[in-house]
């Protein structure tokens, strides 16, 4: 039980550390969008990542 609590505390610390580096302005922007718009942005991001990977393969 104590080990589980310690594990949880450790996890919380890591999560809090990550939280400090999150760009909340992006999240606020997303929260202003509809769910459909959020998915459309995800599709665009996917496309961009795919193009980037292709370009890196060509260049490498």
């Amino acid at each position, binding site marked *: 039980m104590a080990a589980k609590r310690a594990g949880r505390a450790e996890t919380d610390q890591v999560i809090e550390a990550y*939280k400090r580096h999150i760009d909340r302005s992006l*999240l606020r922007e997303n929260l202003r*969008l509809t769910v459909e718009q959020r998915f459309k942005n995800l599709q665009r991001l*996917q496309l961009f990542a795919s193009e980037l990977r292709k370009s890196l393969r060509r260049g490498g």
Partner: protein
Amino acid sequence: MTDFESLIRLLAGSGVEFILVGGAAATAHGSARLTQDLDILYRRSPENMVRLAACLATHHPYLRDAPTGLPFRLDAETIQRGLNFTLMTDLGALDLFGEITGGGRYEDLLNDTIQLELFGVTCRCLGLNRLIEVKRAAGRPRDLEAIAELEALREERERTSR
């Protein structure tokens, strides 16, 4: 590339009972992270498994990373015999979960879902609080950054609703 819109339309339009979970659910809640596949928790009733297999049949579902030539057919019987499937389809990567760690089955999570009107169809998505709980319960190190973002989203939502 995964065509989220077409997959969601296909599943919901075919009457498949499912809940959006994982990265797609996070996107629905406002996550800015890139996710590459659509994760769904499907209801394991015989009728639903028939619907699920039937609607995917024309999109050539195949096990991701399976050796080429491995005989695989996703029909209701295959789904019944298995539980979770990581698939590649003509519409992109689709993960089917009959059960998820820390969350259980479709029926266990149904009360913790929200209904979304999306791409002209209605579908269910795991609520933000439960999504965070499930990710925490899964205990995967790679999820910690995603949990941090989901918690930040919850804080932002609470801040704006005050």
